[in-house]
């Protein structure tokens, strides 16, 4: 099978004689010829109208591979079904082995279900509704497992994985500090700038400080931090757990009698619950700082004036409203990320899907939770 990279195309010539038809095949009958090969083999069958006997002469075939052998065999089979007798001639020994290995057999194509668009649409809708309910149910039961395993660990402090927890806090909390500071300084600045410009029309630009203080402390700080952490750490947790699942590392834990929830998930969720309030606090400070700089620059409000205006505008509870939400956000992010990670199937594609779904779901849930908290705090007048 000496192959010159680009060979001669497969061809055949027909010669009719009283005894029958002789097809002389020549060139490379290999897959390199792509669809030429398929066309030639189809022509062999098509042009055989009314023939009784066909001799296929392989003397001029310079190369033959599995695909070529298969197509020749398939043509022979198709001819035989039309009651044409076929004989092969001048088959080199190595070709005959190949022709024999690639002898024709029918591979029944798997039955394709015929489907109706409306039917598929409805069944998809039903399926996703059921899936969503299942997911909710799984989420609740997962939360239960998580809480019970945390209580279990709390009752046996020596089983507490401090090293692992500290590592998670470093990964989730400490390493997020620069990016959290950066975006919050920017957002604080943007809010201040818009506030000054819009409130200037009413001659009330000093209210900008109240705007920044309340908006940042109650909502923006915790919301931005949670969204950032959902994208940054939630995705990492899902990917980590998912690839551990794929490589049977989770199963390895199970057969050692260890609980993946206790070993893998509790430190991560706890890490999130501890990190997120601290990060929220840092975010608040950063956003206020950004607001202060911009107020000074654009609105001529000096830092000292900013501080005293801020002191009038906010009370401790303004800050607490924001910070109280943080651990709940952390729990939601951790829960969704770990659940989606463990739901990974064996393929790389499924891992990608789980990470996407984890990030989208946790950001969505963070915003929904924030809305629920807003309603709650409004109704208790806090």
């Amino acid at each position, binding site marked *: *099978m000496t192959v010159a990279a680009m060979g001669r195309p497969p061809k055949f010539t027909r010669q009719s004689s009283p005894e029958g038809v002789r097809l002389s095949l020549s060139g490379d009958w290999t*897959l390199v010829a792509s669809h030429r090969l398929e066309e030639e083999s189809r022509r062999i069958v098509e042009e055989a109208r009314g023939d009784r006997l066909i001799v296929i002469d392989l003397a001029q075939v310079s190369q033959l591979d599995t695909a070529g052998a298969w197509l020749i065999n398939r043509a022979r089979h198709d001819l035989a079904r039309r009651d044409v007798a076929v004989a092969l001639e001048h088959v080199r*020994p190595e070709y005959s082995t190949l022709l024999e290995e690639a002898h024709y057999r029918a*591979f029944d194509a798997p039955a394709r279900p015929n489907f109706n668009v409306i039917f598929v649409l409805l069944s998809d809708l039903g399926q996703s509704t059921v899936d969503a309910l299942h997911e909710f149910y799984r989420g609740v039961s997962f939360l239960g497992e998580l809480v019970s395993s945390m209580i279990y660990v709390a009752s046996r402090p020596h089983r507490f994985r401090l090293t692992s927890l500290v590592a998670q806090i470093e990964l989730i909390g400490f390493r997020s500090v620069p990016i959290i500071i950066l975006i919050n300084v920017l957002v604080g600045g943007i809010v201040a700038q818009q506030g000054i410009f819009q409130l200037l029309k009413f001659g009330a630009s000093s209210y900008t400080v109240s705007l920044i203080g309340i908006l940042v402390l109650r909502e923006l700080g915790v919301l931005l931090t949670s969204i950032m952490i959902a994208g940054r750490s939630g995705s990492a947790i899902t990917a980590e757990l998912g690839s551990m699942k794929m490589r049977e590392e989770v199963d390895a834990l199970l057969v050692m009698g260890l609980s993946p929830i206790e070993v893998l998930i509790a430190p991560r969720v706890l890490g999130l619950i501890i990190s997120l309030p601290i990060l929220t606090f840092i975010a608040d400070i950063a956003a206020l700082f950004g607001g202060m700089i911009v107020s000074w620059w654009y609105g001529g409000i000096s830092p000292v004036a900013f501080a005293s205006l801020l002191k009038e505008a906010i009370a401790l509870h303004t800050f607490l409203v924001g910070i109280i939400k943080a651990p709940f956000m952390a729990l939601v992010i951790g829960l969704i990320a770990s659940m989606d990670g463990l739901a990974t199937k064996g*393929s790389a594609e499924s891992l990608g899907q789980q990470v996407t779904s984890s990030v989208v779901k946790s950001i969505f849930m963070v915003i929904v939770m924030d809305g629920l908290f807003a309603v709650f705090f409004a109704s208790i007048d806090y």
Partner: protein
Amino acid sequence: MSSPSTNADGAVQQRQNRDVIISVRDLVVGFGDRTIVKGLNLDVFRGEVLGVVGGSGQGKSVLTRAILGLVPTRAGAIRIFGQDRDALAPTERRILEQRWGVLFQNGALFSGLTVKQNIQMPMRETRDISQHLMDELAMLKLELVGLGPDAADKFPSELSGGMVKRAALARALALDPELVFLDEPTSGLDPISAAEFDELIGTLQQTLGLTVFMVTHDLDSLYSICDRVAALAEGRVIAAGPLETLLESDHPWLKAYFHGVRGGRLTAARIEHKDEEWKPAPTTR
């Protein structure tokens, strides 16, 4: 393509007029400050099954990956099909890469595709043929490697270890390559599956006229299908040739390998029955 010879002398005779399909000269490969391959020379001849043996961590996989162009080399020349890969233009290199097939140590099947789609992947990407023919060829290759049609629509995560190896071999053979690299094809298989796999490689080698570069730890594979064996140690090929010359070598590692506790028993048994048993490749039909 030459029919396999049944004795070692015949093999030697034939080799002299065979052409060299891979030639490695003074190859040096290293990572960081560690040099793994230190001035290695090796030839692979067309139509042979070359077994590469060596202790764990001696650089067998690294050598294979260097030949495949997956790790950078520090010095030396590698010529494949008479061409220096580094001197080729990207399109020429792609054509060259379509002429070989690789079975990685752990299969490396695409996890998001079914077995059938895995086999069709190289066909779909490089050849313009109908889906119908691709389906037929994929099923044919599956049958050639001894997998049933029910494996076709399974995903790699649903396969057993042996099935993964077979499916990966089917994918390596998708384009009917001239040269196949196998990295420990039988490791992790039970002895019966391993023997079947050896036989399979032997059959395919004869049917398709393959040249096989096989990294292996499996003494049985060496005895049953390899025409020639190259032993790797200390970053070099310490001996290469028909198995018999290696058996007589005085190199301490080779002595331990072939005449140690595990190898010794097998070697003794094989030498006793040499006349019936020693064949470069099994005749299957």
